[in-house]
């Protein structure tokens, strides 16, 4: 088969949009699960509601596995359902890098 004769008509819309956001540092808000002392913990502890753990948004890593700054308010895209909501979230995705 001659592959170059297939005249690739590649139309990248989402790839270009998201790669541009990544290159400009705007792809997404940093989110870390921390304990009461600001020590980074696995996301699953926050998702499971382990005592004292909560997500902090927009923080920065500092030495010793700690996270500095940020806010406990996720801003847009709240993870918890509103009052009376019957939707729960965070039951998937506790682990990063799903590709192989």
């Amino acid at each position: 088969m001659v592959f170059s004769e297939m005249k690739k008509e590649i139309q990248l819309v989402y790839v270009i949009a998201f790669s541009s956001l990544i290159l400009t540092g705007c792809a997404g808000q940093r989110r870390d699960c921390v304990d009461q002392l600001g020590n980074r913990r696995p996301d699953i502890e926050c998702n499971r509601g382990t005592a004292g753990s909560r997500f902090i948004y927009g923080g920065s890593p500092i030495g010793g596995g700690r996270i500095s700054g940020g806010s406990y308010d996720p801003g847009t895209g709240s993870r918890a359902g509103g009052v009376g909501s019957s939707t729960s979230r965070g039951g998937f995705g506790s682990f990063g890098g799903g590709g192989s």
Partner: protein
Amino acid sequence: MRRFDIPPRPDWPAKVEKWGLTYHTLGGQPYWYESAYYTLDDTDVERIENATNELHRLCLETVDDLIRTRQIAEFGIPEAAATAMIEDYKGPKGHLYGRFDLAYDGESEPKLLEYNADTPTALLEAAVVQWQWSQDRFPGSDQFNSIWEALVARWQALSADGTLPGKIHFAHSDSDEDLLTVSLLRDTATSAGLRSDGLLMSDIGWNSDRNTFVDAAEAPIRKLFKLYPWEWLVREDFGEKALLPDMRSIWIEPMWKMLLSNKALLPILWQRYPGHPNLLPAYFDEPGDLTDFVRKPLFSREGDGITVVVEGVTQEETPEAEMGPAGFEPRFVYQAVAPLYWTVAGAAVIGSWVVGDESCGVGIREADGWITTDTSRFVPHLIQP
């Protein structure tokens, strides 16, 4: 198969970023490596294409037999997930893509190293970026690469057989590479005339009133491509909901792909097809009569936890990554050492893509040593008859 050194394009980072490859440099070292390229001749392409189609056929045949006879205990799949998979297999089996990792020394038959059948990545660089490189450096050249066209055609086929709703959700973990892989797949779906929406795996909601998964806007998810391994998914908090009769069929890839992305496949294939030219001897739990072998965890990902032993001496080993949920049985398979293509730059492994049920192209990864990991260089290729 040959390898040539070549000066990289002076502005290569900007060139590949233009096509979306933001992760071209990892840990200060180029992951996208265009200071070299490989050439394949027609015989190489034919061997790889035939081996890929043959291996995929063997895999489908094996899955069918294993599920029909319920001989899946070796895979370490939780019982509830195994039961749901068997039930789901009775329905439509629509699957999208996969990537065989093949050992190929340029002379003998390609050998199966593993099948990334559930969550393959290195897709953007294989389907798009190496193609743009080839037309930039060698205008009019040919490449073993119809991955884009095959994906568009596959979405159209799945849509035509009625297994897809009007909109597909695409979910991924919080990683740039995964986001861009899913974005490429969304672009192929768009080219096939489908609508899509994207979200993080962690943003998938479960609505207990409607007993359905929902997106961030509370819209029900009818079909969900997930770049997230089944073996993690079924062990997470929403795992049992994914197995419910109305939910277990929404996923791409489907549940039965769990069997193919699991290293237990390797000894099982060898048991079923001993001596097959595209397979390497492989055994559960011990190396058997192998003196040169590679030990792999059942659920190894991206070269984690691999040990290479030649003539009784460990040549190389990688640590087992602390990723994914707990609860995996620590079990290993032992596979014969494969004849790789070695140069002064290291060893090359062929990532051979399957879309639907057909071979459609390759990406070549190059490691300094024996083991290909997630940081091993991606080196473009050309066909030179």
